């Protein structure tokens, strides 16, 4: 358990909770990070409106890895532009690709995401693509050079939990990169369930931003994620199934 590290693009992390920083006030960020035990925080890149705005980086401790996203991008080209700008802002090489061509459900465009992943991985980025859980696309992302795969649990911001559970499980079983469940996780119990399934980490934002006490919810998520991880590592016990077994022995034919 002590050696159980999350490794993304060669970087090691103890925490398996990736924290979003959207939709809540800047002065809560530090407490959220602390109570979440998070070592990675996501950020968005936006047009700067001159002097009056506060600098979010001031609120983030130095040792926390910044993970800028490409939200706002509608295709691979725009995502690449935003990623390059983020790197120019001096935050390191991590980028979470987020490409939405749909403003109603905010579902990611998997094809464009593969394209952007390939371009940015070639430019040396640690690419963490947000995607709709599709096995073939996940394989394409691996081949394109992704450092992790981030399937959605439910539509972004919906807090609906693991609607795509079966498909996320397939990614966990078949893909050799860390599978980080992103979007739609609304409660600590859902985060715990995803971790029990073998997810490598959880990314959450809205669930915390819409909670009554944000730092307290951050700490609840932290514990749930740790509990789920421990359960996964320890090997879940059996579920007893009622019902009779077939009576005829199948192996009576064996000789010698």
């Amino acid at each position, binding site marked *: 358990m002590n050696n159980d590290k999350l490794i993304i693009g060669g970087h090691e992390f103890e925490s398996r909770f990736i924290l979003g920083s959207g939709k809540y006030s800047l002065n809560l960020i530090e407490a959220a990070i602390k109570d979440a035990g998070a070592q990675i925080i996501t950020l968005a890149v936006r047009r700067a409106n001159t002097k009056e705005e506060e600098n979010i980086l001031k609120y983030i401790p130095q040792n926390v890895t910044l993970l800028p996203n490409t939200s706002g991008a509608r295709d691979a080209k725009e995502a690449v532009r935003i990623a390059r700008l983020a790197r120019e802002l001096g935050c390191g090489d991590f980028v979470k690709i987020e490409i939405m061509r749909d403003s109603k459900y905010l579902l990611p465009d998997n094809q464009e995401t593969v394209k952007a992943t390939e371009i940015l991985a070639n430019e040396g980025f640690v690419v963490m693509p947000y995607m709709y859980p599709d*096995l073939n696309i996940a*394989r394409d992302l691996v081949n394109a050079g992704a450092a992790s795969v981030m399937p959605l649990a439910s539509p972004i911001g919906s807090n609906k939990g693991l609607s795509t559970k079966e498909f996320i499980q397939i990614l966990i*079983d*078949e893909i050799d990169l860390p599978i980080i469940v992103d979007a739609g996780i609304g409660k600590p119990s859902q985060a715990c369930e995803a971790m029990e399934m073998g997810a490598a980490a959880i990314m959450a934002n809205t669930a915390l931003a819409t909670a009554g006490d944000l730092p307290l919810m951050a700490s609840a998520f932290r514990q749930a994620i740790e509990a789920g991880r421990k359960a996964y590592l320890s090997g879940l016990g059996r579920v007893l199934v009622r019902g009779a*077994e077939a009576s005829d022995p199948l192996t*009576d*034919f*064996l*000789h010698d």
Partner: protein
Amino acid sequence: MENDFFIDSKKLSQAALERKHKLETDPSSRSNHMEYMPDMEKIHSDVRDNVMSHMNSYDYHQYTAEDVRAALEHDKCTIEDLKALLSPAAEPYLEQMAKRARIETGKHFGNNVYIFTPLYIANYCENYCVYCGFNCYNDIKRMKLKTEQIEQEMKIIAESGMEEILILTGESRSQSSVEYIGEACRLARKYFRMVGVEIYPVNTDEYKYLHECGVDYVTVFQETYDTVKYENLHLAGHKRIWPYRFEAQERALMGGMRGVGFSALLGLSDFRKDALASALHVYYLQRKYPYAEMSLSCPRLRPIINNDKINPLDVHEKQLCQILCAYRIFLPFVGITVSSRESAGFRNGIVKIAATKVSAGVSTGIGDHESKYSGKETDSLQGDEQFEIADSRSLGTMYKDIEDEGLQPVLNDYLYV
């Protein structure tokens, strides 16, 4: 008790005998079995390292009944679970394994059982693999069918109703060239709906050529994944090069083949380790080539001409059944072929549990289908057999027996694209 494989033929010259004995007794006279020969293509692949690190560290005595029970309770069988299922601790759980295997087989294959037949077109061989009836020092009648003879054999087989054929040769590039095999496969496509080959490993471009000739499935048996034992059993010839053989399936897929088959020859080395390596060979290649079809076989050592004592040692039917159940539970989607090396009783039982493909109307000799199928003597020459088969049922009998077990015999459901 080890098998005694070394048999001297009186027909060998003094010089040949001396060469043979030197190979058998003096390891320094043998080439490096891990070094590719100049004409052998090298590919970049991590599959081998993945498989071998698991096999080398596999200590099956560490697994307990509790590990086996846990493995059987898991929805998905992990590599650790597979190791438990292949361990001696799983032997008392054979019936439970069989039940679970039957459920998995049913999920992926329904009650279908596929039927095929092998066709040996030549038994020349340049290798000295000590356990094999075709080995170059064994005194057998050698033969290579001419085009008309191949076509004649195919006609007889096709008339029996068979739709899938597996073309085999001894491993001799000089006697059975890739072009020769390719021509046989072109002919086979005229008579059969699915053509596979089981021949010496070749390079990617040659697999591509064979694919163009109508081959869509390549089977290569690794014999054993234990490289030290392999060196001791494959004393001379191209086949001696272990890594080139290991990568054959991957080259076949790179050459455009739809499917590939794998196996260890059980009884040559530690069968639990060989079974683990076979399953993981499939597992890792499937992850790399997810569109490919994969199948496993499970041959055990059989007696050969001039050495009727050869036997599969500690791999009894129970162990074989254990291996097949473990394969099925770990790889529910792969085809499992059980050949005529096994008895009719075993094959009838195992198709209800794990096997999805059986051969019928089998001869491992050369050019003898007419006499074997019709019972009539012919004047034409026939080449000797690779090993003794144990189940000589014809297609018709096999078809009926499968039906009688409540299963669905399938001659072919293949579509060339």
